[in-house]
């Protein structure tokens, strides 16, 4: 007997209860306020401001589209999103936004071409460490948002509670996991995939590899000044709560990558 599942619910709470019952081992876990479905995706699309995105996208309170969960599952397409964006300004004015859509297309093409590459280092680390230096398990303090950094804890909580992180916050947290904590990018990537509503093996893992330097020419890292500039209006970025990042780029490079001549030139 095939089990056909219910599709009509009195309200969102009833639907959530139903999915909790389908996954009893996850029943205590949080649910995002981000609503699924084409209707919600179309509403997001209607709010798109492709020009403002270009100037404010790096700030955590910038004009980002929040379309990624819908694009991830084909609910909204890259094509229709671009078609709308190019109505909002000349190519130069909407270039950054269209380029961001192209990143998604780029990652998907790599995934189609080589599905097995997604979990492997595409190139060696360029950090002065070999791959076997990095731990394969994500530590409990990261899973539970109890790291020494208040900003990282804020991002981890947001990831777990909402299923969303701004792209810049993803880069900060990924860099923290790989370069400050010496955890293999795969462990961080799986953690993100579990929680991100837009979690996609290609975009997520290849971005992690870009941060780690296994799919880029050098590792991505940041300092407190950068964190405060772009995340300060949203996350707790006081120096005394984020001491690991409070230094110049040269000093951080010397501390994080002591064996790399290229990064300590």
């Amino acid at each position, binding site marked *: 007997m*095939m*089990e*056909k*599942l*219910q*599709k*009509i*619910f009195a309200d*969102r709470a009833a*639907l*959530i209860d*139903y*999915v909790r019952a*389908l*996954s009893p081992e*996850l*029943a205590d*876990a949080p*649910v*995002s306020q*981000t609503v*699924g*479905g*084409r209707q919600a995706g179309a509403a997001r699309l209607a709010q798109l401001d492709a020009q403002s995105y270009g100037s404010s996208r790096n700030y955590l309170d910038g004009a980002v589209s929040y379309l990624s*969960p819908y694009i991830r*599952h*084909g*609910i*909204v*397409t*890259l*094509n229709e999103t*671009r*078609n709308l964006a*190019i109505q909002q300004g000349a*190519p130069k004015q*909407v270039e950054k936004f*269209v380029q961001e*859509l*192209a*990143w998604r*297309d*780029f990652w*998907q*093409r*790599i*995934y*189609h071409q080589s*599905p*097995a590459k997604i979990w492997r280092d595409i190139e060696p680390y360029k950090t002065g460490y070999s791959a076997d230096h990095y731990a394969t398990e994500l530590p409990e303090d990261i899973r539970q948002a109890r790291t020494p950094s208040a900003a990282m804890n804020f991002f981890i909580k947001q990831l777990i509670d*909402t*299923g969303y992180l701004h792209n810049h916050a993803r880069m900060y947290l990924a860099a923290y996991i790989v370069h400050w904590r010496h955890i293999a990018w795969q462990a961080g990537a*799986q953690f993100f*995939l*579990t*929680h*991100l*509503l837009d*979690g996609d093996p*290609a975009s997520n893992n290849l971005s992690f590899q870009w941060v780690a330097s296994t799919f880029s020419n050098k590792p991505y890292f940041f300092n407190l000044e950068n964190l405060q500039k772009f995340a300060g209006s949203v996350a707790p970025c006081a120096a005394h709560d984020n001491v690991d990042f409070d230094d110049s780029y040269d000093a951080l490079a010397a501390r994080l990558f002591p064996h790399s001549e290229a990064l300590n030139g």
Partner: protein
Amino acid sequence: MADLIWLHEDMLRATHPVFAHASDDATAIFIWDDAYFDVAGYSLKRRVFLYETICQLPVDIYRGDMMALLGQLAEAAAAQKIYTGTSPNPALQKIMQELSATHELTQIDDEPFVTLDGPADLKRFFRYWNQARKTAFDVDGAN
């Protein structure tokens, strides 16, 4: 005999081209496979987002093993042709490959973002962008 449309998690919209390829009386299904979600490590919030999305689609939702149920549902509908969307996901590709051994399976691409005039250069993003930008600002990604 009606066709069977199998929607998977990479193609969750009613305007996906797969609907135009299958016959008008095709039966559309989504299979809620707990084991598939467990292997992918999906949290509850991801499952709720997906379920909420699927409920808005013209599909019946069945719970169980994807491969086993696809065979049973194709048989129940007396469907000779199964239509689905292409996916880079190795788990879905494996199911499609196995299904092709016993059924006529057609994989349909989603609408493209850009049109390239040669093989994609995927070594670094900006190499790819230099190819993609030629049509990235055109409607439907086509000159």
